[in-house]
């Protein structure tokens, strides 16, 4: 059964008829040096099964020991999300069989999470300006990641139809936290944008805390989106679907949008929404059913007897609270002032994920305007082309600042600077190396420029005549020709001066 999108109601029809309620479960891989319950390294991309030991392989007799750094990171996340850090909590075992899970149970917090009752304010851009929605956070808990299955043979890379499967346990036992919201009501038609804005805001917070690299494409931030539709904002909560594998910011928004339309289609047709897990398909933009609640596993949770309870020391928690970095919100207010930006300018930077990058570029010596111009202009264009986030591009704020410095010193013009950035993004090295390697430098030698100007004038005698007769605007054509002849390395303003003086 394939549901095609063309039979679904339009999004506007869907949200006119129903009030969407969303809930988000976000998994974040913590960037600790070692795994949750053993000393193995957590480096991404190591050869398969090279970062394993008896504990994370679940060998008979092995035992877990809790990673203190992971607890600290989780507490800091909880504090940043305005949550209560409980005085005492435990881990549980979530029992189910799967080959990528070495013990056939996952050690995870369950009904006794370490952080409860937090919130995060999220800004939504509306026609009437910015609007703040408070997303309530039910819990933040700790757990361990599973291994990774690779299904070999078959067309889809999925287990169905595969010849055999390989399992890499490097990821097994990587510390994860799960951040679960309460049902988010009141976003109305903006529910998809809110979902995206929430995940974006969470990402900013994680990054600010330095607890994770939050790279969605590498799976270090993963989002499950719950969606339900009710007849109106006053109606009680109803059956929801849970969409998994939503692994980019854009997908979060699209998946919620699609689910709203899909559920509206069913409800309008008099069908019911089934409580089930659904899979998001990036390519087709639709969700398909996974297991339904009726077939769902009974995880047989019980307290993990191999670990002792976690009782965070109150003084320690308060110390961590005092040492929290500035929140993204507070920083936004500060930057607004320091950089003399409008709300709109700042919001567009936030939306582009450029605030940190611009700030770091400014710290590296670039003026605010120049830093903004490059990150939101040329670099944003490339990011868009490649379909990745700004910070996922192989260029650093320091490199952008270096390019800006070269422009300020008159050694590059914008055209050349763009080529330098292109070179850095292509992996050609540091800006200075790209300049040297590509031979990019503004031609400041008037003799060489004059020769080029004379050649251009000679090639276009009619234009030269117009300029001589006082039509100064025609000089543009000659300047263009000179810029082309010098492969953009000339200073256009100087060329113009030379053209006008030659035709005077």
């Amino acid at each position, binding site marked *: 059964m394939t549901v095609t999108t063309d039979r679904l109601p339009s999004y506007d029809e869907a949200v006119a008829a129903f009030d969407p309620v969303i809930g988000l479960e976000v998994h974040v891989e913590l960037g600790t040096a070692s795994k949750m319950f053993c000393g193995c390294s957590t480096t991404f991309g190591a050869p398969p099964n090279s970062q394993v030991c*008896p504990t994370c*392989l*679940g*060998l*008979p*007799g*092995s*035992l*877990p*020991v*809790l990673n203190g750094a992971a607890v600290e990171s989780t507490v800091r996340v909880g504090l940043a999300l305005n949550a209560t850090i409980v005085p005492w909590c435990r881990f549980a*075992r979530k*029992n189910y*069989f799967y*080959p990528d899970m*070495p*013990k*056939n*149970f996952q050690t995870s917090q369950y009904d006794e999470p370490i952080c409860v009752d937090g919130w995060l304010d999220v800004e939504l851009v509306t026609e009437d300006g910015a609007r703040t929605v408070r997303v309530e956070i039910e819990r933040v808990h700790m757990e361990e990641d599973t291994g990774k299955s690779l299904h070999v043979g078959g067309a889809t890379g999925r287990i169905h139809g595969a010849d055999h*499967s390989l*399992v890499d346990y490097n990821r097994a036992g990587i510390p994860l936290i799960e951040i679960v919201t309460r049902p988010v009501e009141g976003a109305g038609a903006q529910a998809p944008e809110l979902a995206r804005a929430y995940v974006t805001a969470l990402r900013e917070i994680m990054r600010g805390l330095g607890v994770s690299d939050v790279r969605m494409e590498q799976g270090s931030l993963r989002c499950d989106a719950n969606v339900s539709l009710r007849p109106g904002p006053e109606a009680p909560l109803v059956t929801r679907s849970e969409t998994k594998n939503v692994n980019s910011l854009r997908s979060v928004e699209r998946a919620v949008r699609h689910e709203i339309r899909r559920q509206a289609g069913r409800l309008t047709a008099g069908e019911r929404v089934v409580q089930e897990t659904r899979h998001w398909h990036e390519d087709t933009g639709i969700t398909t059913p996974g297991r339904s609640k009726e077939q769902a596993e*009974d995880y*047989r*949770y*019980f307290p993990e*007897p*191999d*670990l*002792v309870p976690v009782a965070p020391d109150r003084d320690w928690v308060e110390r961590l609270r005092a040492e929290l970095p500035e929140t993204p919100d507070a920083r936004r207010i500060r930057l607004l002032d320091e950089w003399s930006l409008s709300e709109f300018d700042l919001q567009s930077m936030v939306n582009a994920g450029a605030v940190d990058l611009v700030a770091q570029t400014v710290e590296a010596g670039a003026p605010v305007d120049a830093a903004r111009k490059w990150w939101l202009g040329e670099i944003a264009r490339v990011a868009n082309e490649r379909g990745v986030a700004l910070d996922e591009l192989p260029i650093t704020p320091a490199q952008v600042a270096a390019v800006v410095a070269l422009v300020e010193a008159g050694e590059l013009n914008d055209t050349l600077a763009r080529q330098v950035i292109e070179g850095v993004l292509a992996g050609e090295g540091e800006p200075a190396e790209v300049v040297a390697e590509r031979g990019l430098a503004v031609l400041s030698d008037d003799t060489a420029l004059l020769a080029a100007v004379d050649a251009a004038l000679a090639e276009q005698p009619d234009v030269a005549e117009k300029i001589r007769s006082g039509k100064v605007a025609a000089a543009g054509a000659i300047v263009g020709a000179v810029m082309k002849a010098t492969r953009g390395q000339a200073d256009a303003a100087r060329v113009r001066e030379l053209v006008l003086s030659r035709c005077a």
Partner: protein
Amino acid sequence: MSAGVSTASDLTRLTAAQTGAAIAAGEISAVETTRAHLERIAAVDARVHAFLHVDAEGALAAAAAVDARRAAGEQLGPLAGVPIAVKDVIATSGLPTTCGSRILEGWVPPYDATVVRRLREAGVVVLGKTNMDEFAMGSSTEHSAYGPTHNPWDLDRIPGGSGGGSAASVAAFEAPLAIGTDTGGSIRQPAAVTGTVGVKPTYGGVSRYGLVALASSLDQAGPCARTVLDAALLHEIIAGHDPLDSTSIDSPTPPVVEAARAADVRGMRIGVVRQFAGEGYQPGVQQRFTEAVALFEDLGATVVEVDCPNFDYALPAYYLILPSECSSNLARFDGMRYGLRVGDDATHSAEEVMALTRAAGFGAEAKRRIILGTYALSSGYYDAYYGQAQKVRTLIVRDFDAAFAQVDVLVSPTTPTTAFPLGERVDDPMAMYLADLCTIPSNLAGNASMSVPCGLSPDDGLPVGLQMIAPPMADDRLYRVGGAVEAALRDRWGHLLIEEAPPL
């Protein structure tokens, strides 16, 4: 030396303390001691079947290393060069570890349990691995996938379980020492029915790292020996904090060797548990127990009767908690990573291979408890079963607390009957479970407990065990009391009870 060592068989009759002292003094070598025990094993184990695996080569090499250290002038520890048998539930690097199960046939751990590491560091010579009920589930060793162990006192009777192999190896003079594990009585009940000494240390007193878990909150490794002092010397080596076991207690090991040497109960208050008598208790067992209690008074202790009303619920609570944890602990045996794999013929899915492997690899008792535990943890039943059982556990701890407010040590028969005939209870789980009636409360409460021989039952001429229970981390009291009983009875009989065992 005073023991007059002359022949190989004499070497096997020495206590561990005597052997260690003789090796340290250069009177005998570790190699000849080891060889004598290997010869004894070769001579009798075909009938006893205490061992699943004998590592003659490794044992002789370890013994030679001890002799070399002595030759180099090194001061040896009290058990350096003394042979030991290790229950097959403990991971030994390079030596098979089957847990008495088909499902782990051929598995060779890549690491040593902490207990084994400590033994090796102390120069104790590992002879091999001993037979046991599958994954330590049973009281007769008949649930071993590799055939039962026979009681050296009567080869047609059970040696107790689950650690029947360890107890029998010590009783049959195949090893002066053994490591057992005790989840509900698996060290103490075999000790009782084989006329040997067995100690379940305080939970957390000995590291569980490398002990293949049956029930994580109940399992505890401990010493098996022929004398109380030997058990104490072994206890001191294996006990102590281990950072690899989160449930390991970070405080000094009680002075067990000193207490065993003191062997003095004068002024101590000893409590007889009222609940451990009456129906189901063999008259001969009851008689020897009553005599032991009278002996305490002769030795200068005060004896009172104490009431532990909730002990009546210990067995049912245990048979909910144990299967629950066991169903989760045994989930990892699925044929994916190690051990047996069944059905991997390109026609079965991974899930089917898991199911086929577990169906073929586990015996009836393991399956029974996995099913019980899976049920007890199921959603909708958890509170009624696992939850209630945990409450009972708390009540039992309170009973102990109240009892230990009145007395220093509690005593009871270790097991209600002497060794029963092989085959008698193997198809009657309830009858089998009753063998652990008196030993289970200590596991539920996590305190320390010991069984020492207190005579032969007049009705069948088989050994009777006296159980002593001390509060957590008061293990030294057991050795003080056990040592006193042992010394008084040796004075009475002129020898240790084990000397009365028929020659094999």
